[in-house]
């Protein structure tokens, strides 16, 4: 196996940055939404639920195209954000993170929701009789007990963010050093007849990254389970 080229290093580091950013930013939103879906009844809940799953159902290119129309520099939201808050997603690594975050969002939300639904409400009741306000109940009982789900969601989301490429390349293109992640680099390489070896090398690197994330998450999950079950 030959050396990793500087351009490949750039793509690897960018992928890590994008996937970590996407996962970290999406997680709090994911937790909030999962809680809403698990514990509240409200009008339009099914629609919200469907909306969350949308990036899974649509071909990634479609999601990327919709992102381009919405968050592009000339897009509805994109123009407003750029003019008023100075936040630019278009053709920046932040845009890649946005695309990855949205694509992995359904994978993040579901396991968290599942875990929140499984939390024993009698413990939440006990917490409230001890003086915990609803947000304290959530922070000190519900969320810690749903931790395995949060970890599972984060791993799925992170893995997806590493592998995402259809929406990303459609939204922010494939600009080396700015928006070219490992996955889009693999795509470029595969497009060239002699790129298979280099692509294979990058595939191996993706696998190693994902393995690392998995092993880390298993380790955390094991600790969390130990804590929960006391042995």
């Amino acid at each position, binding site marked *: 196996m030959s050396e990793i080229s500087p351009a490949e290093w750039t793509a690897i580091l960018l992928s890590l940055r994008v996937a970590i950013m996407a996962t970290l930013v999406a997680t709090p939103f994911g937790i909030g939404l999962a809680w809403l879906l698990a514990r509240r009844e409200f009008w339009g809940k099914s629609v919200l639920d469907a909306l969350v799953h949308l990036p899974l159902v649509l071909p990634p290119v479609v999601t990327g*195209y919709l992102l381009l*129309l919405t968050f*592009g520099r000339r897009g509805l939201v994109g123009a407003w954000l750029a003019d008023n808050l100075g936040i630019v997603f278009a*053709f920046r690594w932040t845009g890649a993170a946005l695309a990855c975050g949205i694509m992995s969002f359904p994978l993040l939300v579901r396991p968290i929701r599942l875990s929140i639904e499984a939390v024993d409400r009698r413990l939440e009741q006990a917490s409230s009789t001890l003086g915990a306000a609803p947000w304290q109940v959530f922070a000190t009982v519900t969320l810690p007990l749903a931790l395995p789900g949060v970890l599972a969601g984060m791993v799925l989301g992170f893995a997806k963010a590493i592998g995402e490429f259809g929406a990303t390349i*459609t939204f922010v*293109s*494939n*600009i080396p050093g700015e928006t070219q992640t490992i996955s889009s680099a693999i*795509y*470029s390489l595969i497009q060239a007849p002699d790129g298979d070896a280099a692509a294979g090398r990058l595939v191996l690197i993706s696998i190693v990254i994902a393995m690392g994330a998995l092993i880390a998450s298993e380790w955390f999950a094991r600790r969390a389970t130990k804590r929960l079950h006391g042995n």
Partner: protein
Amino acid sequence: AAQEKSLTIFAAASMKNALDEIDAAYAAKNGVKITVSYAASSALARQIEQGAPADVFISADIDWMDYAIGKKTINEPSRVNLLGNSIVLIAPKDSKIDNVNIGPGFDLSRLAGDGRIATGDVKSVPAGKYAKAALQKLGSWQAAEQKFAMAVDVRAALTLVARGEAALGIVYSTDAKAEPGVKVVGTFPADSHPAIIYPVAATTTAKPQALNYLAFLRSTAAKTIFDKYGFKFLVSPST
């Protein structure tokens, strides 16, 4: 000044090999940093429409260049129909099929037997569009239509043939040339399909340097490289 010394090219993914080499030559000569974003022409055209920071657009077909021009995002006078290509019939290296004479009434369907014919999607992938046009012109489309396996891009079609999954394939000659697992068994006559053209142009937001780059693409130095990869050079090279 550092800004002046860099260019961003949006290029069709199928150009990667040749363009990488040309960019290296250009960068060495002019000290300009070239960044290329390779993706589907459709994605690139739409991104430019949405204000992508591209200086030059290299499309794999005329449709998407026209689309971009229609959206007023291309510096129209700078457009050049730079390269041409041809489409060829390929078969796996070890196939018994060889030396097919492609002309009016040629029976592609019988040639394929119970195998499949791989090409790019005939609705969306340029190579597929040309293949369909050619076969229609030659009167072979109707019989063969059922046997087509339409791949997501030319590379995928090429892989299907190289792996022996498909009995035949129709791809660009440039791609066929680079894949050792296939052999060319026939070439489609140039008049059987619309001219295969790769237009290049600067965007309306391009840096001045872009025109210099476009000029380089038309140079003899560039021609040598494009020739090497099997592209037809459609303009008279400048030195």
